[in-house]
């Protein structure tokens, strides 16, 4: 539930324990046709704001305000979907792919192309990786982010070609520097208008000559390059490695028997996720994961029945997430966010305490206070989807029974909640 969604809402974990492993696994993996919870989130009006007015014109101020407002709306929209969805897998997988094809609005500048990319990732998040990769080659935000629009026949830019091979499709050390240069030529010809999110292909800027990539000589386009790279065996290995890193363990090495690898033979992501859910590694206690700041925040929202956009104020929310080091649509770089230990500094501990205090003040503690005081310490583990509290956390919680807000704060900042077993 923690790995394939964003944590339980009150009652869901206890229900899952009652239903048993098999039934819960089936429920977690079966994507419903309609997600009523997520559907309550209203799509914000994110529009083409047109070309940026001149620096000193009187239009520039309202324009800049509109740009910023749309980006904030976009962040709130996604956080709300994560917090309110009835079925977490789709949002969770979209989140995974956002970290994989990590594109930042800090360079793209506009909400519209980022929203388009999010829709693409959502469409293919459990589909076929071949289709996803093709769609991403045609994604204006990704192209702009990696300087695709500057890459032409006469001056190919290596940025997109390198990352396509290293970070998106094959993995590091599975190609040479010459392959990077060649891929850059194959990817020439795209042009992007970033405020409208339009991508066009201009054949005059494209390199039509024979290109040799990974030993294969032919003419290439961006799409045929994508198909060619995805067809390589290394692609299945690489996607399995990324699933392992984000869903199993960022510290342990992926065993060669990890089931998603063979499930990815047809590049079917859904099959890989199903295989992962049944892989013995998921029950191995040494495979645990630190909740990233967004994952921790959403899990807290679900327990406290908070709608992120209703928090006062959204700007403060973004500030807290930024202090913790993770704001959706703003990954630090094309490598995406880190994992594990990186989220466990003494400074993060400090920010987590003040963030949790702020959330609890605005949250609903009724699910916690409804648990009889005599059994509250042990039963509160179910409330947050924690298997069991350690003796240290039990001691701290027992001493805070008289103060539900402090009780909740300690539970949310406990090692057992921060780390998902």
């Amino acid at each position: 539930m923690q790995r394939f969604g964003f944590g339980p809402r009150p009652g869901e974990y206890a229900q899952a324990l009652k239903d048993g492993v098999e039934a819960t696994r089936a429920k977690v993996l079966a994507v419903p046709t309609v997600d009523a919870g997520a559907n309550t989130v209203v799509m914000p009006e994110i529009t083409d704001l047109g070309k940026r007015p001149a620096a000193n014109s009187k239009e520039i101020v309202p324009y800049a305000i509109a740009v910023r407002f749309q980006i904030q709306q976009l962040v709130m929209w996604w956080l709300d979907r994560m917090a309110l969805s009835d079925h977490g897998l789709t949002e969770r997988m979209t989140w995974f792919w956002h970290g994989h094809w990590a594109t930042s609005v800090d360079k793209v500048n506009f909400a519209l192309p980022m929203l388009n990319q999010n829709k693409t990732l959502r469409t293919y998040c459990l589909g076929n990786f071949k289709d996803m990769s093709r769609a991403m080659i045609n994604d204006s935000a990704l192209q702009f982010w990696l300087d695709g629009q500057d890459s032409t026949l006469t001056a190919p830019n290596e940025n997109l070609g390198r990352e396509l091979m290293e970070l998106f499709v094959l993995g590091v050390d599975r190609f040479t520097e010459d392959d990077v240069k060649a891929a850059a030529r194959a990817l020439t010809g795209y042009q992007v208008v970033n405020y409208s999110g339009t991508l066009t292909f201009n054949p005059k800027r494209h390199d039509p000559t024979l290109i040799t990539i990974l030993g294969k000589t032919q003419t290439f386009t961006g799409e045929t390059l994508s198909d060619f790279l995805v067809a390589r065996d290394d692609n299945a290995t690489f996607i399995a490695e990324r699933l392992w890193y984000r869903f199993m363990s960022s510290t342990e090495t992926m065993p060669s028997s990890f089931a998603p690898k063979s499930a990815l033979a047809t590049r079917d992501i859904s099959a890989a996720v199903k295989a992962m859910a049944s892989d013995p590694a998921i029950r191995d206690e040494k495979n645990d994961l630190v909740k990233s700041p967004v994952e921790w925040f959403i899990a807290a929202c679900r327990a406290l029945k908070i709608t992120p956009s209703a928090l006062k104020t959204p700007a403060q929310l973004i500030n807290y997430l930024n202090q913790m080091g993770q704001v959706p649509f703003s990954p630090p770089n094309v490598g995406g966010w880190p994992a594990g230990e990186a989220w466990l500094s003494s400074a993060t501990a400090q920010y987590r305490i003040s963030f949790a205090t702020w959330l609890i003040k605005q949250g609903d503690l009724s699910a916690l206070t409804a648990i009889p005081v005599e059994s509250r310490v042990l039963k509160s583990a179910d409330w947050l989807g924690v298997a069991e509290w350690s003796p240290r956390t039990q001691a701290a919680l027992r001493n805070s029974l008289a103060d539900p807000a402090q009780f909740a704060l300690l539970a949310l900042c406990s090692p057992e909640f921060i780390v998902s077993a």
Partner: protein
Amino acid sequence: MDTVTRRKFLKLTSGAVAVGAAAPLLSIDQIAEAAINRPLPANTPILVVITLYGGNDGLNTVIPFTDPIYFSSRPDISYKPEAVLPISAELALNPAMKGLKALWDQKKVAIIRGVGYPDSDHSHFSSMAKWQTASPAKHISTGWLGRWVDTQSDDPMLAISLGSVLPPMLAGAKRSGSALPLGGLVIPKGDLATQCAKLSRPVAKDSKLMAAAATSMRNLFNLSTTVQPVLKSPAPVAPELPTTNGGNAGGDSNLAQQLDVVAKLIAAGSPTKVWSVSLGGFDTHANEANAQAELLGVVSDSLSRFMGQLKATTRSNDVTIMIYSEFGRRVAGNGSQGTDHGTSGPMFVIGNAVKGGFYGEQPSLKNLYKGDLAVTTDFRDVYATMIEKVLSSPVEPTLGKWAGRVSCFN
């Protein structure tokens, strides 16, 4: 990447860094007592590492101002010979580095030329990871100073990085340094503090990550109880600088703030032997001249301010500063008044114990290696020197059997 800052770098690379088991538990009282009762012994050497994120252009920092190739290869961004600050017949400092020039004149600055590592990597992230782990050939998850921390007795205040995320440099296999955000730490008080402290206790069943989560909470308490009162005290006075914050004092930049905190804590006797501070923004692909000069000015001004502050303490002879960046830049300009990622660059080692002067060979502008400046000194020579001469520790646990040294200490 538009701007490469420490934060951005750390967010990527620290993902790969794993820190090991939790340290044994110390109570808040014990730690508070320790800070009062066991200040760093007098005359204990202290290392301050300054990381310049983004790839500082070495040729416009230590400028070969009499070499015609310098002018012909980067006509847009070369400094005029009359503008630079000459420190030898061939080399000069960037015009913005007046403070550093003064320290050079006092023979307190060692400039190590052409520093890098074999098979230079042009990626910010890979190259910085190589520098911070001191393992250019193979990716490893511990940092060079983290491995040194591993060899020392357990103390969360032994190595402290300013800022909220720990740089990989300070991550060890068993232990790691601590992170201290600017402005100090705000922590719960009263009963909540007592209960939070309970959460930080190690338990037998803890996984590695749960132990680390508990440790992070414990370090927060340890740091804040001992450090907080110190941060509220006024900064030591810098006698050489105008007390009404003059323009050249540069007190408003972030690096200056970080070094202010370091100076205060050194003055207070914090039992810390390694400090890590940083400045980002050196990735000058375009419009380099102004951007880099501004940053180098910040470095130079912050350094003279810091050295001035130390003068007012009993520890001015104990502190050594080491400055590095993940790579230098290309010799030729790139057509947008900037430079692209290159290879070697100069390192600075500064302090009263330092034997001022040049070390390492100046890379030739004529005989380039694969189109870039040659590496004439391996950075591990400098690290080994710091470990041996400043931290008075054996080199092998940190760098293996590394033989090279730089003779830049008296």
